[in-house]
């Protein structure tokens, strides 16, 4: 289990942590197996994600997936965001061991739930 420098940087300096009182969409997903949790708050305006915030509980990959996801989606249209896959997210964080792929899945699920 050795994590990349980028990965550790997100862990030490999470981007977009928090919640949005003015959120237009909020969703929280829990992984039924391990109990990891991700909460996403978005301000969507004219079909575009203007602000994204997240809260996360769980293993480092879950925390980092939240941070990287918010970076990825900020500024994207909801249509674009809906096309984001688990693989895209994994790529963006520089890969994860396969038994941690479900952390990325959780993030994508939370995103889809928020955009639903």
């Amino acid at each position, binding site marked *: *289990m050795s994590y990349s420098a980028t990965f*550790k940087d997100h862990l*030490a300096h999470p981007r977009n*942590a928090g919640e949005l009182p003015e959120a237009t969409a909020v969703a929280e997903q829990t992984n039924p197996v391990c109990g990891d949790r991700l909460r996403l708050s978005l301000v969507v305006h004219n079909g575009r994600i203007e602000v994204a915030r997240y*809260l996360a509980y769980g293993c480092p990959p879950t925390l980092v997936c939240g941070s990287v996801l918010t970076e990825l989606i900020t500024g994207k249209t909801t249509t674009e965001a809906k096309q984001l896959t688990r693989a895209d997210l994994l790529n963006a964080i520089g890969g994860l061991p396969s038994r941690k792929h479900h952390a990325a899945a959780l993030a994508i699920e939370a995103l889809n739930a928020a955009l639903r």
Partner: protein
Amino acid sequence: MPDRRIYLDHSATTPVDPRVANAMARSVAENFGNPSSVHGFGQQARAAVDRARREVAALVNARPNEIIFTSGGTEANNLAIRGVCHGSTVAARHIVTSSIEHPSVRGVCAALESDGWEVTRLPVYEHGIVRIEDVRHAVRPDTVLVTIMLANNEIGTVQPISEIGAFVRERRAAGQKLFLHTDAVQAAGRMVLNVEDVGCDLLTLSAHKLYAPKGVGALYARRGVRLMGQNVGGHQERERRAGTENVPGIVAFGEAAKIAREELFERTAHDAALRDKFERKVGELIPDVVMNGDRERRLPHLSNTSFRYIEGEGLLINLDLQGIAVSTGSACSSGTLEPSPVIRALGVDDEIARGSLRFSFGKDNTDLDVDYTVEVLVQAVERLRALSPLSRPLVVS
């Protein structure tokens, strides 16, 4: 790499004492012979191994010929448990163990289970300690072995092995072929160890928890215990463990055992002072912490603390980025999805189990290390809690 590095993971392994490293380096240069060789080079190496054997024996008050050198604690645990079970001459096939053993004991018990042995795993309740009544109830006429650790590697709790030992001896006096093994890997060098007082038949040691290098350990096997060798095909260690001896490792182990015996009280007092200061400051400065395991019956150097609302590994990495090394669960189970089975065995909820960190102090740590660690810890816990959804209700607009 951060400027300052503080090692607080002495239960995972310890730095090698320079005196031990010296003894080892000398042995590499001077005693390179094969101890099985008849010539002078061989006999010199044999003599070095014998000296080390006496020191390791002295650490636990055993006789030198009751010490079997192995490649580490894991192998010693394998040899003890399989050795007794496979060497058993009775038809019985039942083992009693605890639910908080090190993965190596857990692993061998599970392997025997899939070979048809029955295994009873005793609970440890909220304090992390096995109850002697439970042992009495669990032992059946067909029980061959009780294997319960002396001190736990994650929460440091000390088990009532002397009482269990007395009970096992009672049963043996009554004619049952029952033996007691105890894994003392964490206890050695951190409390007084005397195999006579403990009353065990087999006891496991590992050098690298005693400021010696990794890759060497020992099994104490009381004279008369029938043990079937596992690594076979050589007459070393009185036919109980084949393979050319790790001479430099054994010499280092001997030196470390000697120092551990001489400096035991100093070290335990030192470690306990730091640990207690650490726990006091954490208790004062960080809300919502739970300290796991019994407060009294535990090793002096270890603190296992859960930080509510956050998960341990993220915290560990945040500390690591600031140069502070700690662990979640045992080093061996790191990388699994499951929260530590040891913490779970305490009956705590998942959040506490997943939020636990082990801080284990050692002889080279200082007061300043504690101050710095607490400072970094306070900030890291705050940062991660700010990220946690657990403390905040979900408000869907």
